[in-house]
């Protein structure tokens, strides 16, 4: 005959309510862990997603995620020529906030290194990778855009041809992927009037020098597209990313960049490290601390509950002692109840969390490892929580049952 279960059945309503309460608390602990993991994972998703072995950024900056980094596009070709590098492409990333369908649309704009990278490596859940050089975009689910939807950004209209899931920036904004040319066009979009004024100013400057006056072609050039003027720099890129040739040694390649005075190179791991230590570090530690706090609170509450449940049973416990029950029987009664409550509460927390977490605006990533660890913690809490009750029960004398 199991006393713990008999007692639970006797006051089932209260036990269930308490268990649900503890379960919800455990769900919050799980959720906090999930938010933490989600945050770290989101922060790394872009870096991992582009599959770069090396990041080459403006000298002494910490990369495109930490601060502004501007490099000339021509750097791509310089990097590609380094021995040990398989290929190199530009990395363009920036956040914009525009209007779409009357609502604010905030998104990270990620430029893919067309034609090497068409977005095959992205976590697509619908649609296809990019198929042309311009005017296509792959949008994250969280942006609320649909396949085939047309979005006007700057002077151009882009068609959504693919949908990803959980592709967000470290700030939690959904990311849309374009070819890097398009991404830059979006970034450096200027109103038509300012472009016209700029061209006019160039023409005026050219007409003031001999070269402009004697060569009519120069004036014509100056009024044309800025990209066609050899003397003007092309739009900058945020970073250059490169893949290593098979068998190449990262450190050796990194060393060869040390002599370059205009750039700094990081390995993929270093870049991830910078990212975690930089932009998300404080948020991460904040959540971590909160999670630790919640776990402690959970332990204290469970301890109090088990203790109160035991207090309510002191008379029956004294009676059990009176009729000769061993300490083992009594410890078993309290410990088993504590463990049953812990296990059920864990189940409740898990099940409710499964339904609730997907509704959160940012990803709550509950990993198997974290679940297992929490299960261990709950087990420990259950045992610790019962200790106070057991201590009390051990002090009950059998003659407390009388009178």
């Amino acid at each position, binding site marked *: *005959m199991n*006393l713990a279960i*008999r*007692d639970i*059945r*006797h*006051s089932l309503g209260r036990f269930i309510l308490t268990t649900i309460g503890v379960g919800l608390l455990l769900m919050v602990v799980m959720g906090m862990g999930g938010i933490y993991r989600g945050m770290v994972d989101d922060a790394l998703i872009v870096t991992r997603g582009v599959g770069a072995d090396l990041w080459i950024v403006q000298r002494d900056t910490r990369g495109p995620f930490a601060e502004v980094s501007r490099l000339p596009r021509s750097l791509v070709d310089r990097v590609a020529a380094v021995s040990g590098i398989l290929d190199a492409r530009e990395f363009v990333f920036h956040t914009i906030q525009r209007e779409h369908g009357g609502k604010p649309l905030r998104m990270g704009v990620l430029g893919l290194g067309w034609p090497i990278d068409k977005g095959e490596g992205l976590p697509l859940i619908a649609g296809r990778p990019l198929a042309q050089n311009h005017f296509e975009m792959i949008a994250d689910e969280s942006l609320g855009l649909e396949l085939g939807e047309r979005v006007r950004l700057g002077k151009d209209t882009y068609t959504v041809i693919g949908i990803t899931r959980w592709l967000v920036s470290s700030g939690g904004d959904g990311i849309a992927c374009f070819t890097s040319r398009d991404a830059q066009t979006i970034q450096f979009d200027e109103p038509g009037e300012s472009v016209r004024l700029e061209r006019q100013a160039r023409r005026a400057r050219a007409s003031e020098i001999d070269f402009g006056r004697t060569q009519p072609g120069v004036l014509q050039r100056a009024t044309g597209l800025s990209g066609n003027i050899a003397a003007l720099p092309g739009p900058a890129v945020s970073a250059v990313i490169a893949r290593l040739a098979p068998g190449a040694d990262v450190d050796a390649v990194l060393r060869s960049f040390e002599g370059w005075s205009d750039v700094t190179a990081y390995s993929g791991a270093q870049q991830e490290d910078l990212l975690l230590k930089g932009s998300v570090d404080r948020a991460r530690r904040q959540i971590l601390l909160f999670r630790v706090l919640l776990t402690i609170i959970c332990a204290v509450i469970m301890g109090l509950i088990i203790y109160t449940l035991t207090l309510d049973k002191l008379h*029956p416990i004294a*009676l*059990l*002692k*009176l*009729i*000769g*029950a*061993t300490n083992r*029987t009594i410890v078993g009664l309290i410990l088993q109840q504590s463990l049953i409550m812990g296990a059920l509460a864990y189940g409740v927390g898990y099940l409710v969390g499964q339904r609730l977490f997907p509704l959160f605006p940012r990803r709550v990533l509950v990993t198997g490892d974290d679940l297992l660890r929490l299960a261990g913690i709950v087990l420990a809490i259950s045992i610790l929580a019962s200790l106070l009750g057991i201590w009390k029960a051990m002090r009950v*004398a*059998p*003659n407390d*049952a*009388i*009178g």
Partner: protein
Amino acid sequence: MDESPALETTALTKVYGSGHTEVVALRDASMRVGRGEIVALLGPSGAGKSTFLLCVGLINPPTRGRVTIGGRLMQDGPRSLGDLRHFRRENIGFVFQKSNLIPFLSAVENVQIVGELIGRPSSVARRRAMELLDTLGVGPRALNMPTQLSGGEQQRVTIARSLANQPSLILADEPTAALDSVRGRQVMELFRDVAHKYGTGVIVVTHDHRALDVFDTVYEMEDGALRAASHAVANASMEAR
């Protein structure tokens, strides 16, 4: 058969507190209860009757004196000889004024657990518990929880529980206080039958003088001192048999 008495106490003394709060609850109380003998213990409130049962029941150690149960010296002054809880589990049955059933166990489980505690298999303990409840006339209420039983039914279940370990000694402290006189008498007769049938020593603390004829021996306690009651009472009980 072992001829040692069910219970023998020699000069049991119990002092509560010390200094000016000192209360001498028992003074040199000596009693002998034979196997199959049922003893009534009378006396005014505060006389020390409950204290006597607690000392004899190995729950509260005496300040001085010895307790021998079934020929085994269990308590020598405050010193206990052996594992009292274990001994209690196997040899002593308790019945108290209030029914004292475990609230989260059904009637039959309250009896069954005693059997399980002394190591009987669950099914055996349950069968025996059902038999006892049937004997005590509460078989039909076996599956009810204590709160669903009347005071008399609860007391019968408690008695069944006190019998479940086939004890050599049953200690009952005002078991009929909550019952009307007819039911009270029934309970007393039940104790007598148990004592005579199983050879169990039974001590019953009672205030009910009308049921004294049920008992083999009557003791009176006054201010902690124990003495056998007047011959008239004892004779009346002898004749009634």
